[in-house]
């Protein structure tokens, strides 16, 4: 296949899972599959799996979460961008405000792991639309 044409088409995978514990494994495997198409090392792929699972777990464990979790994985040049969307409506601050990772919501080890394992982490909270966790993992070193 023509490389230029291949890279001109964004590789974006979307997955919608019920916000229940038994579906978290599917989310992390989907993210790992997309990560595997990039030049991420095996260790980096494991980091992505754990971060995605932690994000989904945080949604599930949070009171007031939505019925579904929407996972979007986008293959960028040398990086993977992941969005975990929860349509649940929570008591949140200013409308549409972009803020640092919400430590009050994803507390403890889960948030610590996400922050440690991913290269970029941010959080968007929309009172009417739900919450987005955005994460980027860049390819660092080969195995």
């Amino acid at each position: 296949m023509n490389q230029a044409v291949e890279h001109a088409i964004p590789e974006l995978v979307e997955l919608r899972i019920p916000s229940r514990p038994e579906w978290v494994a599917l989310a992390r495997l989907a993210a790992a599959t997309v990560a595997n198409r990039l030049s991420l090392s095996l260790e980096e792929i494991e980091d992505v799996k754990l971060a995605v699972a932690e994000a989904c777990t945080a949604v599930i464990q949070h009171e007031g979460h939505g019925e579904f979790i929407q996972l979007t994985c986008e293959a960028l040049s040398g990086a993977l961008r992941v969005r975990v969307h929860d349509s649940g409506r929570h008591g949140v601050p200013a409308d549409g405000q972009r803020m640092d990772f919400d430590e009050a919501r994803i507390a403890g080890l889960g948030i610590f792991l996400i922050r440690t394992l991913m290269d970029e982490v941010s959080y968007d909270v929309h009172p009417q639309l739900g919450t987005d966790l955005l994460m980027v993992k860049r390819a660092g070193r080969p195995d």
Partner: protein
Amino acid sequence: MDIKVNVREAPGDCYVVDLSGEIDVYTSPKVKDAIGDLIDRGVYHLIINLEKVRYIDSTGLGVLIGGLKRVREHGGSVNLVCTNPQIKKIFDITGLVKIFGIFDSEDAAMKALV
């Protein structure tokens, strides 16, 4: 995806919990129940063998921490057997290596029990 839990008696007042599979928000209750049952029966020295665990997340870590807290109230201990680099990395970055005894073999974990 599932987790397999096997509990067996070891020399002394010790029990070994063999775990196999993936420990996450779905499977960790099964691990919690197995560890809790032992503690309820008065077993306060545990070896938890993670050799066949391919994946663990914060809910799994929480179960292990909870078990450790309970046995310590009775002067007990929890030692872990783990050689998987990715899982050891998680214990390392969370600082749990300072709380748990983590060993490369069951023999070593057994010898180190309080």
